[in-house]
């Protein structure tokens, strides 16, 4: 076990990726993701890993280039945020369709307009249906652990799907946190070398990215959907393996002080740490409140959500993105979907918080919990918390 070091989380993320012996990286800089791109470039330039770093001219080309490299059998990585992810959007669904296990680091940032470089989840939420696997880190240690886990998950023969690791831009990427790095030997033991099931080479010519007529497209979707849903089992197994090796536990839905809770708060991403403090304060005041932290976004952990909310009367779901004219928060609408058929389901209150980098403090979480009954009575599907009226 190495000693914890204080490191900026984005820099630590790059160090974690370097531990994974990647072959090719292509990162286009965009705030707040830039430090990952820059530090990884440093690592390659110093020869600390034997990899190629392509200074692509756009994010669209970044994902295209890593897909080309992944097609040859290389282990690949890219990273972006917000507008960069939007620019990649055309290519995004093609990566899982071609079953290329690319790993992407995301510094979650608000999507324009208005243009805003600070943190919320609108960028990854807009890629919800792309077919990528998605996990969320709450703190720097989780970010580092998740990058290493991500390669193993993506490359698993029962998965073979690309995965993104989400870190809140600035609020997580740019903070300095204590991080325990696995040793290279430990990572080598955990993460075997990448063995592609198919690769581009003249010794075995094949065609990747063929055209799918109407008589096969449905079957292609089904095959991919089944693989995506089945990935949850692999993710849970890999997280259990990680816990055994490193002692740090990861679950699709983590719980904090939920024992006997009548009201549950749910967060996704680093806000969960602030919410924990709010739960502590509320418990001191005698409020029977607990916290659920969603770490697995895709494939959505329906069973775990149903299990986690059992016994609670109210569920306060926080979202950091909104679907305009839709059901409100995306996380909340998925949870409503998960709970619709349940006989005893909690009442749900949905707050949209922390948009465009607006800070959400301990007091805000407390107000959200305490204001939940009133919010429920209003009959609105969702509330944008803290908006100045």
């Amino acid at each position, binding site marked *: 076990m190495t000693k914890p070091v204080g490191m900026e989380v984005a820099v630590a993320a790059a160090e974690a990726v370097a531990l994974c012996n990647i072959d090719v990286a292509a990162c286009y800089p965009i705030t707040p993701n830039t430090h990952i791109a820059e530090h990884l470039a440093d690592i390659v330039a110093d020869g600390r890993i034997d990899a190629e770093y392509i200074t692509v001219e756009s994010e669209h080309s970044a994902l295209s280039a890593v897909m080309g490299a992944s097609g040859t059998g290389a282990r690949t990585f890219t990273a972006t945020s917000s507008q960069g992810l939007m620019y990649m959007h055309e290519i995004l669904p093609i990566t899982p*369709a*071609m*079953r*290329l296990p690319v790993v992407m680091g995301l510094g979650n940032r608000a999507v324009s307009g208005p243009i805003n470089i600070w943190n919320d989840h609108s960028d990854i939420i807009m890629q919800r249906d792309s077919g990528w696997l998605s996990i969320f880190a709450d703190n720097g240690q989780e970010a580092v652990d998740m990058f290493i886990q991500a390669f193993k998950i993506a490359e698993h023969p029962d998965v*073979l799907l690309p995965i993104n690791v989400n870190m809140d831009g600035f609020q997580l990427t740019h903070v300095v946190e204590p991080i325990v790095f696995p040793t290279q030997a430990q990572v080598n033991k955990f993460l075997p070398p990448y063995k592609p*099931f*198919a690769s581009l080479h003249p010794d*075995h*010519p*094949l*065609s*990747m*990215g*063929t055209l*799918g007529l109407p*008589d*096969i497209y*449905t*079957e*292609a979707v*089904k*095959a991919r959907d*089944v693989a995506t849903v089945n990935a949850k089992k692999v993710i849970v197994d890999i997280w259990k393996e990680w816990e055994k090796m490193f002692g740090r536990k990861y679950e699709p839905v983590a719980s904090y002080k939920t024992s006997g809770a009548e009201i549950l708060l749910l967060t996704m991403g680093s806000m969960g740490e602030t919410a924990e403090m709010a739960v502590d304060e509320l418990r001191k005041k005698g409020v029977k409140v607990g916290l659920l932290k969603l770490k697995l976004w895709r494939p959505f952990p329906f069973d775990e959500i149903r299990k986690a909310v059992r016994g609670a009367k109210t569920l306060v779901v926080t979202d950091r993105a909104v679907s305009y004219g839709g059901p409100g928060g995306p996380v909340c609408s998925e949870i409503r979907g998960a709970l619709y058929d349940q006989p005893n389901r909690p009442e749900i209150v949905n707050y949209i918080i922390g948009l465009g980098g607006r800070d959400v403090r301990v007091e805000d979480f407390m107000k959200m919990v305490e204001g939940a009954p009133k919010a429920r009575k209003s009959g609105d599907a969702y509330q944008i918390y803290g908006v100045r009226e």
Partner: protein
Amino acid sequence: MKKWPETWKEYNTGGIVFEPGNARSFKTGPWRSLKPVWDNSKCIKCGVCYIFCPEGCVQEGPDGFFAADLDYCKGCGICAHECWPSAISMIEEGHES
């Protein structure tokens, strides 16, 4: 080749086609209305018809003369048009010269 149409379990992972050149299973010959016929008495065995066929279906025989593989020939007429000694004629399908 697998039976078509495939089930979702049979669909190759990632839509990859593992058999190079298996497009040969699709016969494009029925597309044509004209077909090329070689008059070997005029043919000078230059290979121009072979070079210019977009299908690559004009092939040299063991005797050095050329002929189109009628399973694939689309009847575009390029070979007949490019043939120097005009040894190739395009005749209507079903009408032998």
